[in-house]
């Protein structure tokens, strides 16, 4: 298997007399570095934000997987975790924030509210039934709120998807 965690198996490790030589494809190297250092845009809307903080705290500690820096500005963020209820007054803001994030960017819809409006689908005149109507979503993490482990599991799935990317067809950000 790959030498480093997450390195693409296509990479070869040659044992040479002078020491090991590592040959890897460009994609594998880029994807390994990109997937293991995803910075998240702190975007807590409601209850899921607290579980996101718990995932960042000492007990669950998502820094083990490379999500070390929750960045407050979209300029340094790789992914946007929409954690909480999306409401129509928030729509232009979410769109602007998403477009202000540099490519390649990813969106994680955390919790029932972000996926489909959650418990507020009926009888709410301001609810947006799912953040996918505003920004393209990559990973959906169900739960109300999802446990920190569920969030970590979702983010690890996102990492695996990123490892499958290629520079030729890197995800095209939104116009």
């Amino acid at each position, binding site marked *: 298997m790959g030498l480093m965690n997450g390195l693409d198996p296509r990479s070869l490790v040659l044992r040479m007399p002078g020491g090991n030589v590592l040959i890897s494809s460009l994609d594998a190297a880029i994807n390994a570095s990109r997937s293991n250092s995803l910075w998240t845009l702190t975007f807590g809307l409601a209850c899921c934000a607290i*579980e996101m903080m*718990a995932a960042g705290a000492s007990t669950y500690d998502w820094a083990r997987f490379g999500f070390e820096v929750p960045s407050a500005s979209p300029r340094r963020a790789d992914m946007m975790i929409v954690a909480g209820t999306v409401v129509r007054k928030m729509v232009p803001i979410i769109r602007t924030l998403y477009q202000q994030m540099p490519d390649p960017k990813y969106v994680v819809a955390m919790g029932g509210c972000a996926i489909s409006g959650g418990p507020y689908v009926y009888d709410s005149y301001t609810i947006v039934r799912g953040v996918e109507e505003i920004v393209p979503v990559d990973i959906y993490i169900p739960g109300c709120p999802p446990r920190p482990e569920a969030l970590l599991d979702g983010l690890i799935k996102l990492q695996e998807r990123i490892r499958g990317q290629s520079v030729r067809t890197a995800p095209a950000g939104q116009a």
Partner: protein
Amino acid sequence: MRNVTFGNRDKMPPTARGTVPAATVVQPLPSASATSDEFLLNIGPQHPATHGVLRVVVTMDGEVVKDIVPHIGYVHRGLEKLFENRTYEQIIPFTDRTDYLSAIANNFAYVRGVEMLLGLEVPRKVEYMRVLMAELNRIASHLLWLAAYGLDMGAFTPFLYAFRDREEIVAMIEEASGGRLTTNYFRVGGFVHDLPKDFFARLRKFLARFGKALNELDTLLVENAIFVARTRGVGVIGKERAVSYGMTGPCLRASNAAFDVRRDMPYSIYPSLEFEIPVGRNGDTWDRSWVRIEEMRQSLAILRQAMEGFPEGEHRARAPRNIEPPAGEVYSAVEGPRGEIGFYIVSDGTRKPYRVKMRKPSFSNFSALPEILRGLKIADLVAVMGSLDLVVPEIDR
């Protein structure tokens, strides 16, 4: 590894369902006049200091704050409209999603209101269980406030220590109710199920350890010299102005006002428990923080007393299957971690309430921000907002 492209990433997602209108662009505010050197600073919905999504437009003169205009409603889900189309039992999970840090206090206030409408007496064991859970929830909420406030003031360590202790409480609450944060544990007349077998063993272990850990947290943040320098005498509000703004909870008690719903409108078994109400003297940001630390110590004392006097008995009273209270109205208030949480429930005899008005502490506490902050510096804005311990969905409902 197959080559993955993320679906139709190029074009914007179709708003086929048409529920989302074209981007309702927020009209830009008029910028301050060109002659004066005032300018408008927008601390917008997505900002670390706002603990959620509320927007504050600050008119600045240099670095001094001249005026503040808060904008809220970015998580307004229209709950009070939603409640009019839900039965009394279906409303319980929504109450703890308005203020997820004190879900149990919200459940408590709402369920007590419905029980008053029904004239239902709950067994003594249920009262003790409710006080136990409410005080545990208060400590967990204050710990999260401490963590977030540490982050706001630039101290990362309290965040880790506070969350370590909070995880213990959250694990206990989860074992009892099934939910870490949004518990939905209360029912009209009692609880969903009884406390787990080893609950008191874990609680005793927690009480033994947490006293020392709390002193550690206290010296780590609230007694920290830099913290005191940044908060002593900053953001002062007097007792009369605080009461006039409807402030309640630690923010009010910091301004030398010994008002606590557990004393003023006694409910459950609080009259039979001895605990003091910590009161700050001069209503500044440091006092608001100190009051919360002292409250946690008082909660530990309450937990010990409730544990000793814990009676035997049913964990749920004989409540009717379908709850249809007689026509009438009731206001039931509980002392949540942020202040008075009240439910004004008007029933018309059917299975769904005619109107439910939620009186939430953060709504009034936040409305006092412009008066507290006028004339302070921009760095103090972050300190004062953190000390108000705001939970945004509670403001917007």
